């Protein structure tokens, strides 16, 4: 990439908007995932009795819905990211591509 083009992109408001928004989302979702997963691991390590508590009248304990919840959270968070990135952020990227005339 020629330096001139590079500088033009790096200063472009669309580029700045794209990177700012996308980074914020990516790091927020990463933080949520880490918090959820390590929260679960720390519960296992330090407060296992919480996970053994019964839910309702039957045999189900809190650990199972929570565990399945972590799995569903992982799927949901990746879904949110794809939805934002392949929609809004890719529109910004496409606008940027048009502007600089770079190949897709």
């Amino acid at each position, binding site marked *: *990439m020629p330096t001139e083009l*590079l500088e033009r*992109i*790096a200063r472009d408001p669309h*580029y700045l908007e*794209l*990177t700012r928004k*996308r980074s914020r989302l*990516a*790091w927020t*979702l*990463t933080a949520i*995932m880490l918090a959820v*997963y*390590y929260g*679960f*691991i*720390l519960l*296992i*390590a*330090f407060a*296992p*009795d919480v*996970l*053994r508590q019964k839910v*309702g009248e*039957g*045999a*189900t*304990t809190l*650990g*199972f819905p929570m*565990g*399945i919840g*972590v*799995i*569903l959270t*992982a*799927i949901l*968070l*990746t*879904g949110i*990211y*794809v939805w934002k*990135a*392949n929609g809004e952020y*890719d529109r910004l*990227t496409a606008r*940027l*591509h048009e502007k*600089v005339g*770079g*190949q*897709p």
Partner: protein
Amino acid sequence: MSLRKLLAASAAAIALPVHAAGALEGTTTKAEINPIAIAMFLAFVGLTLFITKWAAGRTKSRADFYAAGGGITGFQNGLAIAGDYMSAASFLGISALVFGSGFDGLIYSIGFLVGWPIIMFLIAERLRNLGKFTFVDVAAYRLKQTPIRTLAASSTLVVVAFYLIAQMVGAGQLIKLLFGLDYSTAVVIVGVLMVVYVMFGGMLATTWVQIIKAVLLLGGASFIAFMVMRHVGFSFDRMFTEAISVHSKAEAIMGPGALVKDPISAISLGLALMFGTAGLPHILMRFFTVKDAKEARKSVFYATGFIGYFYILTFIIGFGAIILVGSNSVYLDEKGGLLGGNNMAAVHLAHAVGGEVMLGFISAVAFATILAVVAGLTLSGAAAVSHDLYANVFARGKVDDTKELKVSRMATLALGVVAILLGIVFEKQNVAFMVGLAFAVAASTNFPILILSMFWKGLTTRGAVVGGGLGLATAVTLTVLGPAVWVKVFGYETPIFPYDAPGLFSMTVAFLGCWLFSITDSSAQASREAALFEAQLVRSQTGIGASGAASH
């Protein structure tokens, strides 16, 4: 909970996919010849060889060989990634773990899943925008080619070698058990087929083998789980109640067991699983088979969905096995243990809910699964040799397409021969530590180099090589000194390093090493590398200048 039990369980945790292999070792006996399983397996082999022939006609350049020409869609790639990740041993191993201890099995499957969102948020699109054929392309984007490629290709080969040996040994034992074939015959069949797929059909054939296997495995597991749910009237609560009433550990299966007393193991294991996934070379390589970052993101979403769904199924299957297999004397030996060991829980359950046909189907799927996983590993090992070491280090990037393609095929053949030999040599060895080691090395070498090269301007060649090298050495050394090798392989009384999972320590060493040896690097090379960061960042963010589907 005794310490021994605790260690055994944490060994099982990190080495989960091979937990199957480990537990099968030495104790397996040859099964009766199972005609349905063999017929179904032959049908799978016939179909995949036909696909390989078709793919061979389309594999003409190195871009075809390494990346299927970039023409795989996000959905297909998502399925193929899931296929790469859901090994036979993880299917059998996780359901066995749930069968044996209930809730703990779920902990491990969660650990295997949570790396995927991280790959999505931090790695997938930048990787696709910067790389061409291997993740090493990305690490070497602005760093000095020779040292960084040599290190990253070496750690790729270490990861591939351990993972491959573990799979080969597991395959031999499993096939002996399921199909009544000789151990070495089984290993040779697996080795020959994987070489044929990769050598002739390259990434295109490998991808389709993964896709077919993923569909078969998800289909078979869905059917078994459905039958279990039908048995309990589609009530999880009833499933738990029935399981508690027949399981020897009773209520204990409903909460955390083995991991409880050792937070360091739990955290260290969690780190290795989460970030190891993000450093597995054969998984990262799959991102170059799609045309752009958009498809790469879709791949991860589909893969996460399929893998998550699969782990929920294995959890239902484990509980189903407690109810339908664990209390049925047909599947038990004189001592009340499961015939063939706990890893057979899912296989017996297939028989319990679907008779001989389902048993044959699941056996054939297990065999197909092993084939698909080893093919993916072999391809990534071959790419490390031909693309990273031969083309970019030895020939300094001056090599034509035909020549590189030829080298990659020779490398595939060589890896196949080595894998067969090692598979036979390690027959009677305890290989349970090997997948754990592969994850630890991936998390402590590949992952730090990759993530820092993309996110931190200050990373220099010196920092990456020293830090990555230290991470590799620490992961290997601590594994050898730990209980999995020092005690279980070498037979010493007590381990020198108390934990099975070295991830917490080796990752810390790697990141500190990368940081320290980068910030103290005041060479001219280091400032050139920092100056290149902005161009790399812009390309990684926008895809401008990235190699497209056709221009690979």
